[in-house]
């Protein structure tokens, strides 16, 4: 497993404590009712803290599934 995935799963567990760990990799705004606009911002802030990065609020709308967030973070972690 890459470095990003376990850390991101932990972020999801913090923001969505009722979500079963096995369902986190397939979570998205479409299948997770708790993932509303408030939770989306909280998730971004938790990711910023856990990964030590700054994210642009403009990106939040695009990051609507675990997979998209993971891909975004992997892109960010690769050297330019």
């Amino acid at each position: 497993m890459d470095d990003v995935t376990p850390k991101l799963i932990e972020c999801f567990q913090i923001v969505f404590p009722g979500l079963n760990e096995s369902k986190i990799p397939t979570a998205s705004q479409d299948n997770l009712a708790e993932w509303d606009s408030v939770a989306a911002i909280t998730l971004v802030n938790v990711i910023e803290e856990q990964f030590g990065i700054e994210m642009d609020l403009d990106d939040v709308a695009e990051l609507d599934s675990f997979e998209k967030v993971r891909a975004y973070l992997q892109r960010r972690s690769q050297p330019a």
Partner: protein
Amino acid sequence: MKITEALRIVQGTPADAPPFQVTLACGFTPLHLRTFLNAHLQVALPKRSVQIKEGLFGDLCGTLERVGECDGVVVVIEWPDLDARLDYRNAGGWGRDTVASVVEHATLSLDRMRAALGRIPSGTPVALALPSSPLPPIFSAPGWQASEAELLLNSNLLHFAAELARDGRVRVVSAERLAQDSPWETRFDLKSDLKAGLPYTIAHADHVAEMLAKALIPKAPKKGIISDLDDTLWKGIVGDEGPENVHWDLHGDAQMHGLYQKLLGSLSDTGTLVGVASKNDPAVVAKTFERSDMVLRSEQVFPIEASWNAKSGAVKRILETWNIAADSVIFVDDSPMELAEVAALHPGIECVLFPKEDPVACLQMLRRLRDLCGKDKVSSDDMLRLASIRQGAVFREQAEAGSAPEAFLEQAQAIVTFDFSAAGEPRTLELVNKTNQFNLNGRRWAPADWHRETSDHRCMTVAVAYEDKFGPLGTIGVAKSQFSGERLLIDTWVMSCRAFSRRVEHQTLRLLFDTAGVEEIEFTFEPTAKNGPTQEFFASLLGETPKAPFVLRKSQFDEHCPALYHEVRELKKAEAHG
């Protein structure tokens, strides 16, 4: 606090803990402010489950007007709550006429908030934060110059806050302290405001939430400060230099010691006990305290323990005289070694170094002492505390050295006053929530819960005051009860340790048996780590130490009750209950 930590604290709340319901009134999207507030309150109330209910976006006044039954209200005002044209998200203009209209409308909004706050049920604590984000550049003057309109707006806001603070029901967060903890440049997040409706950065939301939580659930203030003398209360070693050659003023390059004396004097005047533990000749110390220019007056200090023995011993004697535990006390000394010696022998005591060479650190220390001992209200009992400790010392001396205890009590001219109408007095709940040694079960009450229960017509609450020929002790006891069938059920009973050995507890029980006209009283007793004196008292009546709730028969009480010599007064007769 980080957002991750805050979420973990909130999620870690025990599911079966009784709820503590807080209404959060603010006009913006609270988001992280809500999470941080929840977390800080949860830390302050580990045995409760803090639940936060928020109102509608953009409707702070409406939320305040709809506040129902809850355990606390938190109000966070921002500029748009005074007038929508102060909102960066608003499309309205900033013309010259607009500015005057904004000031006028802000005044009306403040009036509406004041009225809504006045309607919140009494007994519900309220914490309020004034606007802490920057005003938009709406005023005609350049930014470095305050326009009349801007000053009027701020002036109206401060008048509003001052009125609320004077009333005492609302605790207003200090804008100055917030500015120290959360600098202006790191407070405002315009992008977050425009996109999500939250104007605060995460760090600022945390600072605001922390201060609101402290205001809503204030920590119990420390009860006493024990201070060293040489190079602490004054500059110099009095044993070497003589009483006339130690300093605490600008002239002696010792102003920080003078400021420290001022703070101790101020704390003493508001009920914090101040004592001295010093390695010195007692006669030299007494002579120094006779100096007319001493800022801290000798009558503000008791006791003064001056000897050549270990400081921990002096601290022990002072704690015994005050009859309070080490964890309620601060020890101040300029010597790290003395602080360590006292800390080792008195676990829990708060040891504070007097930084005699560093004025900046010294000012921080003074602020810390004020934070630890400060109270938002000073009661008449606070003013009596030091006098009653002195009185207690005289009482004990005479009881031990002079006449036999029985004759001594008989000649004390003691008066016990029972007040059945004092349940709503702040001192009553304060006493219940801070008393440890004579405490039926250690239960602490949230103000709203206390107010709700004691307002019930079936509840009988009595506050007990004591005085004798040595002086008044003020309100020293509270008992809360209700009828349960043919019995009286007491679920809260506390008595200040200052009133021990005067048989006030016996007189209280006698009055409750007589007033209620019952043959049995049931006590919701629970042993705690600190209520040993309560256990001993009940053991003297029952013949054994109780381990759980129990029933005391009047015949048992009468059989074991010693002679009582008090004159008994009732300020307001108990009404028929049950």
